[in-house]
C-alpha cells in the first residue's frame, strides 16, 4: 500500500516531534490515514465521523483508547463502532475485531459503504464532464477499444488524501474493498472452544484471552516496531464490542455485588500498556447503563483516554418533546486525553446532539440559551454532517 500524505496539515509544523513508538534514529514516514496534531506532534486518526473528530480536538491519538458508553439499546454505539472500523478500511489500516456476541466477519460485512470523492465531484462538475465526454468517447475508441465495454472501475477511496470520510449507511461496504485489507478476528465462543481453560492475573478468562490475542497480533505484525526493516508502517485499529457484558464472562452488568470487580479495570490497564507501545488505536463499547456499581465506571473512565457517552431519546419522554424532534439523542463527552501536553485543545462547548436523517448522521454543537417558559434549553445548531441509518 502506498504511503500517502494525508490532506490538510502540512508536515512542516512539528510533525517529527512525535517520538513515542519509533526509535529516535528512524523518521516516521507518513502513514496513510493519519495526520500530526499541530499543537503537540501527536499523530491523529479519524474516528470515522468527521464531526466527532472535530469535537475530540482533531481526531483520535494513536496509542489511545476511545471508550463509548452505549446507549440503551446499543443502536448508536454500534454505529460509531462501525464507523471506526469502516474508516480503517478506507485508509487501508489493519483491523482487529473482537466480539462475544457477533461473528466479526458478520460485523465487517455490515460496515457502511464509503462515499467516494467521485460521487461528490460529479455533482459539481457536471457541466465539465458533459463537454469532455464527447472528446473522450472519440479517444476511447482509439486507445482502448478493447476495454470500453468493461464496467468502469470505482476510484479507490484510499486514493483520496482526505482525513475523515463520509459513509452511506444504507449501503454496505463492497466485498472487494473488504478483501483489500488485512484483518484479525476474535470471537469469544470460538476461542473458548479451541483452547483449554486458562486464568492469568485473576482476570476473567475472556479478557485474558483477548489481551493475549491482541498482544500476539501486535508483536507478529510488527505494530510495536519489532520489525524496523519493514518498509511500510501501518495502524492497527482494534474494535471490542460490548466489553463488560455478561457474554464476556463478567458479572458486573448483572449484579451490584460482582464477584470480581477488578477484571475489567485490570484489562483496561494492560490494554493501555499495549496501546501505548504500538501504532494502534482502540474503540471499546461498554454497556455502562447496566453496570450498577458506579465506582467501576469511574475507574474505567480514569483508565481510558477518550470517553464518550451516548444517550438516545428512544423510549424516553424526550422523544415526543418538540425541542428535540429532529434529533435522536445526545452525545456526552466525558473525557478527553491530555497527551504530551499540559493542556488539551477542545472546543468550548460539550453539549452535543446527534441526528439521523436519511443519508446523513449529524453531530451538532449546541449554543443553548435557557428558555424561560419551559426551563429547557433551546438548542441551535451550526455544523452538519449527514447520514442515514436504515433498518
Amino acid at each position: 500500500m502506498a504511503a500517502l500524505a494525508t490532506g490538510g496539515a502540512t508536515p512542516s509544523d512539528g510533525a517529527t516531534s512525535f517520538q513515542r513508538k519509533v526509535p529516535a534514529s528512524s523518521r516516521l514516514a507518513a502513514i496513510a490515514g493519519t495526520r500530526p496534531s499541530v499543537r503537540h506532534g501527536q499523530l491523529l486518526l479519524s474516528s470515522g465521523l468527521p464531526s466527532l473528530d472535530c469535537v475530540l480536538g482533531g481526531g483520535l491519538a494513536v496509542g489511545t483508547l476511545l471508550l463509548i458508553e452505549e446507549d440503551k439499546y446499543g443502536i448508536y454505539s454500534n454505529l460509531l463502532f462501525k464507523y471506526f472500523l469502516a474508516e480503517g478500511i478506507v485508509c487501508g489500516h489493519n483491523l482487529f475485531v473482537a466480539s462475544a456476541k457477533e461473528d466479526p466477519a458478520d460485523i465487517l460485512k455490515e460496515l457502511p459503504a464509503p462515499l467516494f470523492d467521485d460521487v461528490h465531484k460529479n455533482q459539481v462538475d457536471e457541466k465539465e464532464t458533459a463537454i469532455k465526454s464527447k472528446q473522450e468517447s472519440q479517444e476511447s475508441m482509439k486507445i482502448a477499444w478493447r476495454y470500453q465495454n468493461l464496467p468502469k472501475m470505482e476510484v479507490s477511496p484510499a486514493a483520496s488524501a482526505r482525513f475523515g470520510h463520509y459513509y452511506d449507511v444504507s449501503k454496505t461496504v463492497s466485498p472487494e474493498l473488504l478483501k483489500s485489507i488485512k484483518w484479525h478476528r476474535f470471537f469469544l465462543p470460538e476461542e473458548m472452544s479451541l483452547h483449554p481453560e486458562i486464568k492469568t492475573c485473576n482476570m476473567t478468562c475472556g479478557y485474558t484471552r483477548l489481551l493475549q490475542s491482541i498482544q500476539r497480533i501486535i508483536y507478529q505484525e510488527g505494530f510495536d516496531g519489532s520489525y524496523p526493516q519493514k518498509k511500510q508502517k501501518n495502524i492497527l485499529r482494534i474494535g471490542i464490542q460490548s466489553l463488560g457484558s455478561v457474554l464476556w464472562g463478567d458479572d458486573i452488568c448483572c449484579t451490584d455485588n460482582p464477584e470480581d470487580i477488578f477484571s475489567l479495570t485490570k484489562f483496561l490497564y494492560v490494554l493501555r500498556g499495549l496501546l501505548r507501545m504500538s501504532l494502534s488505536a482502540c474503540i471499546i463499547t461498554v454497556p455502562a447503563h447496566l453496570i450498577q456499581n458506579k465506582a467501576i465506571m469511574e475507574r474505567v473512565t480514569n483508565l481510558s483516554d477518550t470517553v464518550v457517552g451516548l444517550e438516545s431519546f428512544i423510549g424516553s419522554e424526550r422523544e415526543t418533546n418538540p425541542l428535540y424532534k429532529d434529533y435522536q439523542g445526545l452525545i456526552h463527552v466525558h473525557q478527553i486525553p491530555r497527551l504530551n501536553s499540559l493542556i488539551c485543545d477542545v472546543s468550548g462547548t460539550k453539549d452535543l446532539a446527534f441526528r439521523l436523517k436519511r443519508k446523513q448522521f449529524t453531530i451538532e454543537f449546541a449554543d443553548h440559551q435557557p428558555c424561560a417558559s419551559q426551563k429547557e434549553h433551546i438548542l441551535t445548531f451550526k455544523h452538519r454532517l449527514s447520514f442515514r441509518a436504515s433498518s
Partner: protein
Amino acid sequence: LSNPPSSLSFLEGSLLIVFQGKLTLLRDTKTDGSFLVHHFLSFYLKAGCKVCFVALLQSFSHYNIIAQKLGVSLTAAKERGQLVFLEGLKSCFDVFFGEEQHVGQTNPLQFVSKDGSNLKTMYEFVRTSLMASGSDSWKCPVLLVDDLSVLLSLGVRPVDVLDFIHYCRVAVCSQLKGNIVVLVHSNDDSEDEENELVVNSLCHQSNLILWAEGLATGFCKDVHGQVKLAKAFSLLPMLP
C-alpha cells in the same frame, strides 16, 4: 555530567531548604491535576534532588515530552542517575506477558498477577532507589507517585495502599529526610468508596494539600480551574 543548573528563584530555593521530610498530596476534582505532577517533577530535578518517580498512568515519553517543555530532560536525568523511573504500564506488561521465571520476584508490579494486594515489592523498589549511595551528591530524595488511585483499580485494597504510603514515609521522610508527592483523583459525588477512604486518610496525614478543581460551571477553554492550597505549614516566618 554536572548537576543541572539550578534555575530556581530564591523563594523556591528557600522552600526546598525548609520543606523536607514532608508528604504533599495532589488532588484533582473534575479536572486533570497531572500538570501539578509535571511541575513537581521538573522542579525537583532542577533543584538537584534525587527523584524516584512511580509513573503508573502514562508512558515515559509522555512525561519526557512535557518535561522538555518545562526545561528538563528525563532521559538525561536517568542517565546521570538522578531519576529512577518506574514505568508502570511497561512493568505490568512484563508481568502479564512475560515468562514466569523471568518476572521473578523483583518486578514492582508483580502484585497484579498474584492475588495481589501486597505492595511490598514496590516499597522495596522505592527504598533501594532512593537510598543514598556513596558517590551521590544529590540533595534530598523525593518520591513522586502518579497516581495512587490506579492501584485500587488493579486490585489493591485501600488498607494496603495506605500501608505502602506509611512505609514510604518512614523510609523517605523520616530516615532519608526526603519528600513524598502523591496524586489522587477524587470527586465530590464519587461513588468509589475505597478511593474516598484513601483520599480522606491521606488528607489527614499530609503536610500540604494542593487541590486542583475544575470550574463548577463547566468546561471553559481559557480557564481550566482553580488550585486551592490547603494545610500548608507555615513558611512565612522563615522568609525575609
